[in-house]
């Protein structure tokens, strides 16, 4: 008799999801699926609204990374106005995005995955959470909480509030930052840096003991995509797209955001509200690619800041390959990016441009279509708008970072299930490993239910036994 194990809901991720693991008669794992169960319909209800409202509306897609949406949306707006925004505005936006990378990565590492990494996959589920971590390792947890707080306070200092600040707008930003605030942040940087480096050290000891997890938590070749600077360095805001394969081969480089559709298509399946983006030239489902911290570090040549670059080199050495294909390393990549962000914040706080009061460019609607792209903590995010001559949205498509990891997450779930589950014994701790594998991607599923595209669609014919009989892609 076949059997299905359902993990519902998947917890300690940013969103609503469940996992089905399908077992064969002999108890072996036949397949596993990662289902996203939320749908909100932004693509539809934003139609008919002015594009300048989009940053604030699309921010409400996600409470974890609203800044990514605000920035991608504002950039799409810049392009509709066809303006180059004032340099100070660009730098302030960068500063805010760095704040977001710090807070979001800290959240993922300490609050969400920390309990797995530092309390253990098999620890008491009732205590396997941030409160449990506080109880077990108060100083370590406090450091993580304060690191996240630091990121949130950068956002608040710029945007007036920590979550959903209405700040970045088409043409620039609404307010600057005072010298006093900058000074205050400078003072707090050393502590943040210290927490990060300690976390890095802690993680490495975990990593040393996680050989099995490294080889089973999404360890497979795939493409990687992310933005890079014109020089090919790590980029988090602006920049152009680069795609590398698992061997490090560059398949596409310096592709502008508005050509994203040449690179990526989207498929949908009956069993998830989350779509399945894939690398267009390879088709669905072969065009599997990963985005986010690990992908960004894989596609770039180097970060461009000394401490982060040193760590990047070490990570590549530890993985034994230029291209790190084990998703367990997402945690490592996240810490490296926090480090990079702190280094860049240090630089930016001293930038004289930041004091400028010229923050916003104004223009009428000059383009009727635009794509704005930002590197969200979880990967590349695209906002694609079409407007009428007055500026009312007539079409809206959002390619969400997490969606682009959908194929990889499904493959990861199946891999972990096959590795750990044999059917004769099903323990909670084993199932938690399946979830932990997903948590490595830090999926943000609030974001993830909104993608639409002119993409190909997959149709799965499922037989009476639940088996996929046929699979067609167009």
């Amino acid at each position, binding site marked *: 008799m076949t059997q299905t194990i359902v*993990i*519902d*809901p998947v*917890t*300690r*991720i*940013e*969103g609503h999801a469940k996992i089905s693991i399908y077992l064969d008669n002999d108890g072996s794992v036949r397949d596993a699926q990662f289902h996203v*169960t*939320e*749908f*909100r*319909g*932004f*693509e*539809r*209800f934003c139609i008919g609204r002015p594009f300048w409202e989009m940053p604030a*509306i699309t921010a*409400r897609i*996600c*409470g*974890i990374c*609203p800044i990514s949406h605000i920035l991608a949306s504002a950039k799409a707006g810049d392009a509709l106005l066809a303006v180059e925004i004032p340099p100070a505005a660009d730098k302030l936006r960068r500063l805010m995005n760095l704040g977001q990378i710090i807070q979001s990565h800290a*959240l993922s590492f300490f*609050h969400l995955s920390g*309990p797995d990494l530092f309390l253990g996959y098999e620890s008491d*589920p*009732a205590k*396997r*959470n*941030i*409160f449990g971590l*506080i*109880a077990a390792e108060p100083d370590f947890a*406090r450091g993580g*909480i*304060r690191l*996240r*707080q630091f990121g*949130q306070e950068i956002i608040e200092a710029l945007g007036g509030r*920590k*979550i*959903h600040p209405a700040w970045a707008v088409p043409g620039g930003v609404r307010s600057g930052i005072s010298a006093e605030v900058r000074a205050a942040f400078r003072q707090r940087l050393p502590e943040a840096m210290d927490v990060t480096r300690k976390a890095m050290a802690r993680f490495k000891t975990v990593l040393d003991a996680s050989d099995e997890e490294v080889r089973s938590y999404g360890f497979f070749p795939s493409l990687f995509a992310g933005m890079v600077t014109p020089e090919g360095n790590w980029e988090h805001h602006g920049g152009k797209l680069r795609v590398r394969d698992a061997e490090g081969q560059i398949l596409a480089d310096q592709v502008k955001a508005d050509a994203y559709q040449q690179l990526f298509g989207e498929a*949908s*399946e*009956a*069993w*998830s*509200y989350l779509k399945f983006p894939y690398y267009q030239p390879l088709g669905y489902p072969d065009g599997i690619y990963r985005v986010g911290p690990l992908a960004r570090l894989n596609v770039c040549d180097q970060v461009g800041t000394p401490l982060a670059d040193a760590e990047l080199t070490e990570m590549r050495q530890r993985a034994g390959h230029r291209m790190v294909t084990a998703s367990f390393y997402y945690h490592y990549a996240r810490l490296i990016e926090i480090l990079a962000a702190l280094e860049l914040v240090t630089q930016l706080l001293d930038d004289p441009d930041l004091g400028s009061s010229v923050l916003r460019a104004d223009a009428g609607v000059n383009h009727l279509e635009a794509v704005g792209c930002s590197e969200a903590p979880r990967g590349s995010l695209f906002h694609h708008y079409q407007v009428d001559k007055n500026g009312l949205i007539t*079409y809206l*498509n959002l390619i969400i970072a997490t969606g682009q990891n959908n194929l990889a997450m499904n493959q990861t779930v199946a891999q972990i299930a096959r590795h750990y589950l044999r059917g004769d014994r099903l323990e909670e701790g084993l199932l938690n490993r399946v979830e932990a594998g997903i948590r490595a991607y830090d999926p943000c599923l*609030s974001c993830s239910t909104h993608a*639409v*595209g*002119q*993409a*190909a*669609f997959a*149709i799965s014919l499922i037989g009476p036994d639940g088996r996929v009989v046929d699979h067609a892609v*167009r």
Partner: protein
Amino acid sequence: MNRLKLATVWLGGCSGCHMSLLDLDEWLIDLAAHVELVYSPIADQKTFPEGVDLALVEGAIANEEHLELIQDVRERSRMVIALGDCAVTGNVTALRNPLGEARSILQQVYIEHGDPRGILPSTPGIVPILLDQVVPIHMIIPVDLFLAGCPPSGPRIRAVLEALLAGTPPELAGGFG
């Protein structure tokens, strides 16, 4: 001292209210001394437990799973707080309401914008059926307190929790958006 059993629930929304809760930062450590987190998206319990003292509910009722969960939340909790505008008013989650039937919205999002042979997410028991109209939670169950805001700021959440822990009535009115 018997710790208060706290649950946090995330329905149709963006998780911003939960993030705001986390923005209490180090006060969370103080809170941990007074409460036991028995159900939450940031904790690992899969079913909503019995005997909850306080349930903070973020998000609106948008699909059949929310509908079922919120009934459990009400039946098993002493006090239910609607946390944030989505739970209190429907807010951005309810922006799809004027468009009518959920099915036609899904159709537009998954099919009309792409390949007409595309498929709708629809597997029974896997992807929950959407409600045609997203509604705030008090339309389904009695709610004890309403804490509006998109999201309510950390300090406002803290003020409410502190008042409740101290057994005094919290200030709640207003503060939409």
